């Protein structure tokens, strides 16, 4: 089971943003997309999420074309975490997390909410106002909300989790924590797509990596095959050194 992205082309006013992208996001795997600023990473994520329509190409969720899925079916198949979240009114953290729940409430609602909040370590924040939290805390809350969106009862269905730079602005301990949670989520059967800037995190946590440059997916495959000095240096136009033994990437 997987999400297949086939021959995606996307233009804004004749400027080519994405050029013939093909990749697949498999269940039980973390797939990361790496690339310099403006290479089209976020646009790609938005197209796969169904926010924008591509000019051509198909996105297939487990043999079903995204075009034939209703908004609610999409919402129960995949969730998307964006970079930041502005909320105008004073909602509590609990309100925000609960918004992720898209179906009717049932008896397991509170229990699932409890599990998600425990997993994301936001239990102490639940009664606080979302707007009074720090940026990092807000990010954790949004992470919990997007995770909660996929906690729907029907576990037979495969589910996907797309994240746009989830570790940005987090301290190192929280980065590791978040990646570890993603790892457990992955083992629960989710397919995960990650847009990420931190090369070391991508290297150590991803199963597959795609390298994007100028709207083209230049390389895509198993992490170990893709993360080479040559590939990374070419993508970023700067010298990058991959230490395969210690699993560290040096770029200065």
């Amino acid at each position, binding site marked *: 089971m997987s999400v297949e992205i086939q021959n995606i082309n996307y233009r804004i006013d004749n400027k080519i943003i994405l050029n013939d992208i093909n990749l697949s996001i498999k269940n039980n795997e973390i797939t990361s997309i790496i690339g310099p600023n403006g290479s089209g990473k976020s646009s790609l994520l*938005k197209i796969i*999420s*169904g*926010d924008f329509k591509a000019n051509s190409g198909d996105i297939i969720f487990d043999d079903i074309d995204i075009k034939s899925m*209703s*908004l*609610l079916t*999409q*919402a*129960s198949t995949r*969730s*998307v975490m*964006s970079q930041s*979240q*502005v*909320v*105008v*009114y*004073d*909602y*509590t953290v609990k*309100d*925000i997390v609960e*918004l*992720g729940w*898209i179906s009717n409430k049932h008896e397991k609602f509170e229990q699932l909410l409890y599990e998600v909040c425990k997993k994301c370590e936001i239990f102490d924040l639940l009664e606080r106002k979302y707007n009074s939290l720090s940026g990092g805390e807000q990010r954790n809350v949004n992470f919990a909300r997007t995770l909660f*969106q996929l906690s729907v009862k029907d576990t037979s269905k495969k589910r996907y989790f797309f994240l746009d730079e989830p570790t940005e602005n987090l301290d190192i301990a929280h980065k590791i924590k978040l990646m570890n949670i993603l790892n457990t989520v992955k083992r629960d059967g989710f397919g995960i797509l990650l847009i990420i800037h931190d090369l070391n995190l991508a290297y150590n946590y991803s199963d597959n990596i795609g390298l994007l440059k100028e709207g083209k997916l230049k390389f895509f495959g198993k992490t170990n095959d893709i993360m080479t000095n040559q590939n990374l240096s070419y993508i970023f136009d700067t010298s990058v050194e991959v230490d395969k033994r210690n699993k560290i990437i040096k770029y200065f």
Partner: protein
Amino acid sequence: MSKKQLFQLRFFIILLFLIFIISILSGSFSISFSDFINNKLKPLHSSVLYEIRFPRVILAALVGASLSVSGACLQGLFRNPLADPGLIGVSSGAALGVASTIVLTSGFFASFSQYVLPISGFIGSFLTIILLFYITKGFGYSGMTYLLLAGIAINAFAGVGIGFLTYLSDDQELRSLTFWTMGSFGGALWDLLIPAFFCIIPSLIWVIRLSKKLDVIQLGEIEAQRLGVNIKKLRFSIIMSSAIIVGVSVSLSGMIGFVGLIVPHMIRMMGGVQHNFVLKSSIIFGACLMIIADLLSRTLISPAELPVGLITSAIGSPFFLWLIFTIRKQQLK
């Protein structure tokens, strides 16, 4: 809804009931409570009560509920705490629609004006919201200044239109126009109330059913769509129902400012921001507030009357200033 919110909502309902009783019994001549309860009213008293006071107070409640809930809906939909049907020009759009019908059709529809006027009010407010939508490129939090400035422009334009229509009108039209633009519940009759009831009550129920979606849209339109909310449909429903309730209210009572702005904010401060609570409480509390405002308007300088819009504006404008300052503080933070 939490227990505290449920308690508050029940409290508002009891409050509404009490205010209703007080309001129908008091006025330029008062009716004693024991006579009313024991059904010992003199014929004159009972006709004042049932033909004048009852429709008037019910109309005040209906308009108060309408303006408050449409304020709450617009503030929610546009994620903009300053959206108020009066402030952003929706009410004056409705007023221009009604005034045009009164003057330009010059009594052509007179025999069924209780249906024609609400419809023209609705068309006016609907067109205004559509216009605002295009001017501010889809509203949005960052476009708050635009929204208010566009509101000023629309208010000014509607003012010109109404002024021009006043100039065109003959004596008879002028009478009904002036009477109506001042904003008053004085003209309330059962005949006028019935069509209003059938427009406003279903719209209120319609928007209450959208409250979960209004919560979700607080995360942003794209996020809401990712959570399965059809944004276009939601936007259409809210705009349509707000236009109906504001248009009909304005057609019945003229322009009454600030209620739609302050009531939802008071509710949020008292009990929380979840729309299920905010919408329901705004309906009840808005009705309470408007009945009180109307009661003041007809008792303060009794036997004469003050326009009720004067009273709501007197309470609302300082609150509006306060709101602007707190919002600025939040943005600086």
